[in-house]
């Protein structure tokens, strides 16, 4: 029963499966180029993104420079994650046993539908009609808020950026800072419009805006009996879960309620307690550009007399098994959601996150989302990159994103005309005489694009094509050098 996801899929129980359609937020409604075009036309968005990504790049570079063994830390992070993936089933069983032994309850969700059902039923069992949430990519991925609302349960986002998105009836556009596309003036307007009881004299000073959020959520923290969180890490050998945050909303949600439900992608497990020593050094510096984020909470099951006495962990597949089955693409599961790749990506900086459609934007989103859904459902994303490689250099766990992008392009459905042109080009290029003839045709201005290299087969309105030279190099060589 519980193994069944969306209808109409022709997968077999027990075989790796992609995330079902019709639930969650992994699929956009239009191809990337169309969405990007609209975003590129929004000058305010461009300014906000340029400022924010520039700020974070500088901060991150400064604190990474302080760590002399950063390359070794990255290599260690990659090795631990690769080891984790190789042993994922047994590590999850080990995690389950440790959490259970510490008084927690572990649930397994094959997909978004199952995870939403499990969480909703757990909340309903408490009798609560409101839950408070710590920012979590996994619950955004599965559309948990929508599922809870459909069941009459109000989800309250407590992370400042998530609150801005929720109050603004907006969509998140960044993994770490979901409201990165908003500047302080826009945030002030959203608060004035949608935050009950807000001081009408609110200014756009960030400290004033943060204080308004503090007042707004205080009662929620004290009165809400159920919290839902994600997890940054889960230690298999100890059953310990970790949430890394800044504001203290995480501590509130992890400490004050009676019931805590954590929804975690299965790839978040790490083998050993000591492995935290690698990731807690990598994540803050790569993510917010801090030596350490203000708050990190670690908890292992239930602690009598301290914090929630009902602790649940929902382990989520939702397409991850399909990613794991791809020998090239599986390293996307190493991601620790730091968003460094977004912050250095020249495409992300100009289009923002909404253009990617999925909750996972930027370079990592361009390799993760198509794999979770199957490439056909996010076919434009592997092409949303110039393959400049900045993401690979920035990744604290050394995910070779450009190679995965190229790998996924080979799986994407191709336009028929393009496929025919590519086959013709390959044939021509494998016959030097034909190739030389095609080059001469180019020189005469009679362009038969099908047989020519990329610069000749399509250009846009904003650049001038170079005029063809009087002779190709091989003609020059034949005249001046051959036989000499």
């Amino acid at each position, binding site marked *: 029963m519980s193994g069944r996801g969306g209808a109409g899929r022709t997968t077999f129980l027990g075989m790796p499966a992609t995330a079902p359609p019709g639930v969650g937020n992994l699929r956009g409604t239009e191809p990337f180029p169309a969405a990007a075009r609209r975003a590129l036309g929004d000058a305010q968005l461009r300014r906000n993104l340029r400022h924010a990504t520039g700020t974070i790049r500088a901060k991150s570079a400064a604190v990474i420079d302080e760590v002399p063994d950063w390359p070794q830390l990255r290599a260690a992070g990659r090795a631990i994650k690769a080891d984790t993936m190789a042993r994922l089933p047994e590590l999850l069983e080990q995690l389950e046993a440790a959490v259970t032994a510490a008084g927690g309850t572990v649930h397994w969700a094959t997909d978004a539908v199952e995870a939403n059902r499990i969480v909703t039923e757990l909340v309903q069992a408490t009798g609560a009609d409101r839950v408070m949430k710590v920012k979590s990519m996994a619950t955004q991925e599965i559309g948990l808020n929508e599922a809870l609302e459909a069941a009459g349960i109000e989800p309250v986002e407590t992370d400042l950026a998530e609150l801005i998105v929720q109050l603004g009836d907006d969509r998140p556009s960044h993994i770490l800072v979901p409201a990165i596309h908003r500047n302080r003036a826009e945030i002030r307007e959203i608060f004035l419009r949608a935050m009950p009881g807000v001081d009408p004299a609110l200014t756009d000073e960030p400290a004033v805006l943060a204080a308004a959020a503090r007042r707004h959520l205080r009662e929620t923290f004290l009165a809400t009996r159920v919290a839902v969180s994600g997890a940054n890490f889960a230690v298999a050998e100890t059953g310990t879960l970790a949430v890394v945050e800044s504001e203290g909303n995480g501590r509130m949600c992890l400490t004050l309620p009676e019931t805590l439900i954590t929804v975690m992608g299965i790839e978040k497990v790490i083998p050993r307690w000591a492995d935290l020593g690698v990731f807690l050094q990598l994540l803050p510096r790569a993510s917010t550009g801090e030596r350490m984020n203000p708050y990190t909470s670690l908890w292992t099951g239930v602690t009598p007399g301290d914090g929630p006495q009902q602790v649940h962990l929902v382990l989520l597949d939702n397409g991850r098994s399909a990613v794991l089955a791809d020998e090239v693409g599986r390293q996307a599961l190493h991601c620790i959601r730091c968003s460094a790749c977004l912050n250095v990506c020249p*495409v992300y900086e100009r289009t923002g996150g909404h253009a990617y459609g999925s909750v996972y934007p930027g370079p990592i989103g361009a390799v993760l989302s198509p794999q979770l859904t199957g490439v056909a459902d996010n076919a434009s994303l592997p092409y949303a990159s110039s393959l400049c490689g900045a993401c690979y250099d920035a990744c604290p766990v050394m995910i070779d994103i450009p190679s995965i992008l190229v790998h996924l392009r080979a799986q994407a459905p191709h336009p028929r005309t393009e496929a025919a042109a590519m086959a013709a080009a390959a044939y021509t290029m494998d016959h*030097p005489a034909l190739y030389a003839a095609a*080059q001469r045709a180019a020189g005469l201005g009679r362009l038969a694009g099908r047989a020519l290299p990329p610069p000749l087969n399509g250009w*846009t309105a904003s650049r*001038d094509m*170079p005029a063809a030279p009087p002779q*190709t190099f091989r003609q020059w060589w034949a005249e001046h050098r051959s036989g000499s």
Partner: protein
Amino acid sequence: MRIALFVTCLADTLFPEAATATVRLLERLGHQVDFPTDQTCCGQMHVNTGYPDEAVRLVRRHVRVFAPYDVVVAPSGSCVGSVRHQHPMVARRAGDDALASRAAEVGRRTYELSELLVDVLGVTDVGAYYPHRVTYHPTCHSLRLLRVGDRPLRLLRAVRGLDLVELPQAEQCCGFGGTFAVKNADTSTAMLADKMRHVLATRADVCTAGDASCLMHIGGGLSRLRAGVRTVHLAEILAATEADTDPPGGRDRTGPASRDTAAVAR
């Protein structure tokens, strides 16, 4: 030393001056250049557009053509990157492990021009003369795939008469990306606009790089703006001497002639 020129399809077809400059430069330095005429294209376009199966025959051809040579040079970081990093992958993917190992072997002997000069031939002063104000764009694949580092800058600093000015935010991609510039033309154009802004801020006469493709992209944009800044391949600058009556870069090669080029890959 006997050096095989891997000209690249782009330089062969559209930017032969970069290739002839490479030949003149290496010959001036006392080396023999071979041009195996059976070469065509490394297949990067196919691989990066999602057609690795179509690329297999081009990888096989490339390996066959260049296997006899101890040293291969290309005036393109991107194509060398493709040969080194993609060819073995394409062969393995096709189940041809023998081809993969031969491709890896050819990749190890294939150098981008600045790598060849500095690492293999051991020169940074190639005896060039180029009296212009120049800024250098470190193309992404030279920078991050090949890690050529400051080799091109060391070569440029040794050129007599050359006034080298630093390019702001040099490491940002120009937005070309091959198939990217076609499939995501708007985003590519936005990236190009910023790159051009930085180039113009240097007040350089010439923007140079080790890749004809990126230079075509940047040069095409600058030409449209009628900005007066020329794009010139690194090889042309290094090949230039006092004896040249018409130093390279004096000829404006970009123009609206081919603007109606058929768009196929959309």
